[in-house]
């Protein structure tokens, strides 16, 4: 049998997994069902019947507990793929009803705290390393020309402003959940 697939490149921010879920749902409505995705943000879709399918992402880095998978499968969820610590689950909608893997704000917030702690672990050492280098770089930049200054500003944004922005966005999501 011949199956038609398409590939799409799409960037999603880690604090916007709900937008990604919505996008995957929209694709399914047009008959494109997620098959694989990789760490380069390339998604492969296989063509089928248009359907209302709920997609849900769960951030669970590390080796997966078989009981976790079994529990989701028992509840009617299909494990589509897992990449970079993200588990992709989907479930066909019954009478337009969207199912949820997290049914209260507290457990949804706990998933975001997991994301937060990993982000901190990854980003903070990079920031500290850069900060120590910046001292050295700034003395060079002051005696050097505009190129050195440009590198200095670029590195500051990439290594300090950006990580802080990511952490702030995740915190904002958690805060919003707290207010229901």
């Amino acid at each position, binding site marked *: 049998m011949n199956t038609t697939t398409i590939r799409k490149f799409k960037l999603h921010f880690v604090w916007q997994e709900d937008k990604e879920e919505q996008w995957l749902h929209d694709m399914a409505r047009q008959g494109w069902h997620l098959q694989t995705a990789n760490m380069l943000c390339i998604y492969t879709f296989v063509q089928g019947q248009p359907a209302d399918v709920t997609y849900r992402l769960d951030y669970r880095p590390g080796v997966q507990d078989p*009981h976790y*998978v079994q*529990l*989701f499968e028992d509840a009617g969820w299909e494990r589509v793929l897992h990449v970079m610590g993200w588990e992709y689950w989907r479930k066909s909608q019954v009478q337009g009803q969207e199912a949820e*893997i997290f*049914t209260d704000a507290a457990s949804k917030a706990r998933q975001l705290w997991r994301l937060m702690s990993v982000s901190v672990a990854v980003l903070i050492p990079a920031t500290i390393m850069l900060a120590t280098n910046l001292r050295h770089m700034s003395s060079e930049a002051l005696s050097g020309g505009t190129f050195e200054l440009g590198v200095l500003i670029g590195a500051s944004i990439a290594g300090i402003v950006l990580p802080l922005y990511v952490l702030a966005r995740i915190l904002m999501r958690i805060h919003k959940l707290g207010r229901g």
Partner: protein
Amino acid sequence: MSDINYAKYLPLSEATYYVLVALGEPSHGYAIMQRVAAISEGKVSIGPGTLYGAFATLEKQGLIVKISEQERRKSYALTENGRLVLVEQIRRLEIMVRAGHAFQKSLPNGTAA
């Protein structure tokens, strides 16, 4: 025996409360989900992500314990502490409901639901 610091556990969230009640009969995850939907008269449904997290938390707190494992399904039961915490929660809920009933009686006829 009952030197439990109840403040550490109470009040239970609605989901946790129903999970503990459903564990009055030891069972595995999916059976819990179905039972909670039934005993809450359809008011509460528990998603697998929420339940998986609840199991981990309750087990760490010593309120539930794993009793068996079959085909990648873990069954849990209440511990003695789990039962005590649940009983104390029910006692407090009864006080809340009594207070609520007193309020309803104070309303003019017809406004109480």
